């Protein structure tokens, strides 16, 4: 892109040069507005992260929006049960692009300690694409801030053109995903096969 040394020199003189893409990413990464959406235990740590001690406002992400139509980021904070999963997918579908998902805590990633339960969805990535996973039960508020920084870094790396450009500027990529329905014993379907590709598991026992 631009010559880094020349740019630094100019910055010393008070002249900032940037590209369209960088400006766009800079604006997006510093105003990630999360959806005000808590599911379980991790939501309390999410609230704690937005309170005085950890102060998520330092990252421009304190504007928790009650409506999915105004939100950029969905923090899936807590256990997603099978009864709640259709609503979570619906909320995701209602969010405008560009949108990101952070799966906060063990339960949101894989069902966590509750994966043995009959009503617990074993990972929200079965139905919606997840950008960042934070393990922990619950993760500390610092871990959420850390994940937010990782997401900012990811946004920074986005390009406006080329094959690697992000989903929201690719007309062929879907921005909405099918909503599962309640079946007689389980959700129907129990995963989105187009989205969920688990790694192969080798059992040695």
């Amino acid at each position: 892109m631009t010559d880094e040394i020349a740019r630094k020199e100019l910055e010393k003189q008070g002249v900032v040069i940037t590209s369209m893409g960088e400006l766009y990413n800079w604006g997006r990464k510093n105003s990630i507005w999360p959806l005000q959406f808590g599911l379980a235990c991790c939501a309390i740590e999410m609230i704690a992260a937005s309170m005085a001690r950890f102060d998520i406002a330092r990252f421009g992400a304190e504007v928790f929006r009650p409506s999915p139509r105004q939100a950029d980021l969905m923090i899936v904070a807590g256990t997603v049960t099978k009864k709640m999963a259709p609503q979570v997918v619906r909320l995701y579908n209602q969010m405008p692009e560009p949108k990101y998902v952070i799966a906060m805590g063990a339960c949101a990633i894989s069902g966590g300690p509750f994966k043995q339960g009959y009503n617990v969805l074993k990972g929200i990535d079965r139905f919606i694409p997840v950008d960042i996973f934070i393990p922990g039960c619950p993760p500390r508020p610092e871990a959420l801030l850390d994940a937010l920084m990782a997401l900012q870094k990811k946004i920074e790396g986005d390009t406006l053109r080329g094959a690697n450009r992000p989903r929201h500027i690719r007309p062929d990529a879907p921005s909405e995903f099918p909503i599962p329905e309640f079946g007689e014993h389980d959700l129907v379907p129990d995963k989105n096969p187009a989205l969920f590709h688990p790694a192969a598991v080798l059992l040695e026992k």
Partner: protein
Amino acid sequence: MTALAEPPVMHEAPPSGTIWRLAEDRSSFAGPTDDRAGGLPDHDLLEVALGPHHPSTHGVFRMDVVLDGEEVVRLKPVFGYLHRNHEKIAEKNSYLAAIPYTDRLDYICSMTNNWAYVMTVEKLTGFQPPERAEYIRVIVGELTRLFNHACLVGFLLQDMGALGTPLMYAFREREKILDLFESLSGARMMCNYMRFGGVRCDLPDGWIEEAKQVVAEFPRFLDEFEALLTGNEILLVRSQGIGVLSKELAVNAGVTGPMLRASGVGYDLRKVDKYSIYPRFNFRIPLGQHGDVFDRYMIRLLEMRESLSILKQALDTIPAGPIVDPKAKQRGLRPKAGEAYGRIEAPKGELGFYVVSDGSPNPYRFRIRPPSLINLTVLEDMCLGHTIADVVIILGSVDIVLGEVDR
């Protein structure tokens, strides 16, 4: 209600200033469902699903509300959005493995959940926690009550439209207590601290002094909180006379905890069951008179002051000694066939565990008696006749945590 063993005491006057009674008591018990709801679909009535994703439902809770204009004529709560199968998982696992799961029931107050469960198993097995362990349990239990009530008030005010400020003050205090919990048990929220017949580890050096300092500084926060809120006319208008719960209904519907006492029934398990070492401490049970949202708010503030008094006494008199019953067994516990029901006064009400053993290493039946769920039985009765905006406040004053409602 008459004749409790020890007559409960209401504070003569709330600590700060006059209380404004602006609104007339305009609600009464209106029966389960208003007749007008039968007329659906009527062009006048509007059916609204409040939740499961709603900023003021404290989690994933849903209320199907039927409205006549702004007035609620029917309200049916819908549960199960956080049904995590605690009971089934506990029945598959060992007795010890159930303790960390109880942390996640009422995920704000993990310590009291631990306590109720280990107390039930102690009833089942006959383990006797030593003196020091009982003191530690009382101390962490009352600390839990402190920040639960502070956060509840913060959330309630958030529902009333005081965005941020009271909640932020409450969380600032909560962080101090969580620091204590972390240095004690290793985790901020999910402490996993109590064990059958005692507690997992002893207090670290200097912990008592730190706790004393937190307890000494807490009244200043309470005074600040009350100066900010209790006299506030907006709060008074929005909470007085709203969501009135009568004594008779409260008792019949099994309402417990601060909500029951706000309706004027002096039933606190710390006094009634005299479990653990509570009889040694001198404290009073605040009682409400009107059973409305304001009384429920006020009861919590007064209870925090009483908890502080218990804490002061306990921190001053904690003895040295062992922290676990030497007979107690943690791993591979197999109680004799039988059953036990243990209950404690958790911050939200009576938290009970019912454990049936058939002599095998895992409980045959593991049941949690959730105060939050049963307190919601009367939600419709409290909301009928009020406006939709009040529903949110009434729900906030019940103090629910969805992890416990749905389990």
